């Protein structure tokens, strides 16, 4: 009996030791929640003594609505937004447009076979283009394009305007800091540098 208890004690102690050596499972980073897409202007001002972050009243209202839970899933202002019902309606209408256009081209007696082929290819291209716009949601240049001259503009004391997405992230992801501004800039090599 005593031997049994001793073995059990040793076994439990061993298990505890082994468990103690296992590192604490890392909690996955909580995905950042995008709450606002707006414009940001970085303005160097020699007259002020402290950095300021100014936000418009309308943007602030959107932020507050998001914090209150009234902002929807992604209150992205400006641009093509994803919404299941509206996307379904848009898809149905686009399907009807492509179908009717295809029937009209096929039934057109004044159009030759080669022209019909070209028309069909163009229709497919338009369809693919529209699909690309829908999926990417950004038909213009990449947002980073506007920030490409930021270092030069700062050096010259000029303002720079570009788009910005406001995200709410977990505190531990900011490493003790309160806010972080991430600018999409690529390192530019000097002329002689590879």
């Amino acid at each position: 009996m005593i031997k049994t208890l001793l073995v059990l004690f040793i076994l439990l102690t061993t298990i505890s030791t082994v468990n103690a050596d296992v590192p604490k499972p890392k909690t996955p980073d909580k995905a950042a929640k995008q709450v606002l897409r707006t414009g940001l202007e970085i303005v160097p001002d020699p007259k002020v003594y402290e950095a300021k972050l100014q936000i418009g009243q309308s943007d602030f209202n959107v932020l507050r609505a998001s914090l209150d839970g009234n902002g929807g899933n992604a209150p992205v202002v400006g641009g093509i937004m994803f919404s299941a019902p509206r996307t379904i309606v848009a898809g149905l209408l686009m399907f009807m447009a492509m179908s009717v256009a295809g029937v009209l081209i096929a039934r057109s007696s004044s159009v030759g076979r080669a022209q019909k082929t070209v028309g069909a290819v163009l229709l497919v291209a338009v369809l693919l283009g529209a699909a690309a716009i829908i999926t990417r949601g950004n038909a213009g240049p990449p947002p980073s394009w506007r920030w490409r001259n930021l270092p030069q503009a700062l050096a010259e004391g000029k303002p720079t305007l570009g788009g910005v997405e406001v995200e709410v992230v977990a505190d531990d992801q900011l490493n003790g800091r309160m806010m972080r501004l991430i600018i999409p800039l690529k390192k530019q090599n000097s002329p002689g540098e590879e």
Partner: protein
Amino acid sequence: MQDATVINGWPQRATPTTMPFSAIVVLSVLAAAAFAGWLPLQVSIVTLFLFAGPHNWFELRYFLMRLPVRFGRSRNFFLTAFAGLGVLTLTYVSLPFLYNATLWSEEAWYVVVASWNTALMVWLALLVWLRSRQKPRANWKWTIPVALALCSLNWLGPDLFSLAIVYVHPLIALWFLDRHIRRTRPAWSRAYRRCLWLVPLVLAVMIWQLSLATPLADNNGLFWRITQHSGAEVLPQVSSHMLVSVHLFLEILHYAVWIIALPLIGRIGSARFWEVRTVPIARHPKGFPRIVACALAFAIMAVVGLWLGFSVDYATTRDVYFTIAIAHVLAEAPFLLRML
């Protein structure tokens, strides 16, 4: 001495040269772009104050000039046009009241706006179909898939679609002028169409020059309204200076066409545009001179009322005007189709 002939009620005159006309068009386009790019907010305020009301009066008179005494074969077309005009205008005007009275989510409002835009597209497609039935040689079936595709894009971005209407509407005036020149002064048509190529070039230069301009100061209610109307909230990544300038440039062209170009080129009623009898449906023995006179007189009172409103409370009057003005935007569609 030039011979004057009348085609569809419009005097037609031969012209020896198009050079002065082309020079005036080019200078007007460049001047409009310069003013719009230089002081967009200030010029926008002055332009709207001076020309918004009068341009609506001239548009009303132009539409009355184009209205037949009896609808005849076009009965269904005009009934559809007026019914759609009434319903779409009323629903559009009711949207701000609905917005204040309800607490719908942003997504619900997108659906409402997308539905109104879809109704507009359906109405336009119906008008095109009815008009095409009167023109057996015209093949306008391609407009059906185009309308469906536009409806589809509208549901993806209703606010962008509405903004597109704001920017496209001023260009319709250039189309009216084109059709009018072809009827009244065909010798100018080629020169006019060549001059039109200047518009996209000027727009490209404006966008190129102003795309990185510092945003306009919208620190008061009026400036904020002007930038919002030009799409500053819908397109936050674009400089508001560029948006307001481009929109103002198009608006100036729009007003210039309706107030100056169309009355002068058409020589409406031998330049006595204020006389009711120069309107065909008022002059005709079976016409409606009293109704036409009342409509034009009421429109004059509305113009004066608009000026008074702008003087007392510019910002509120601006909001009210741009809400009600959807009627003249819609009215252009059937009358333009009648000219095609």
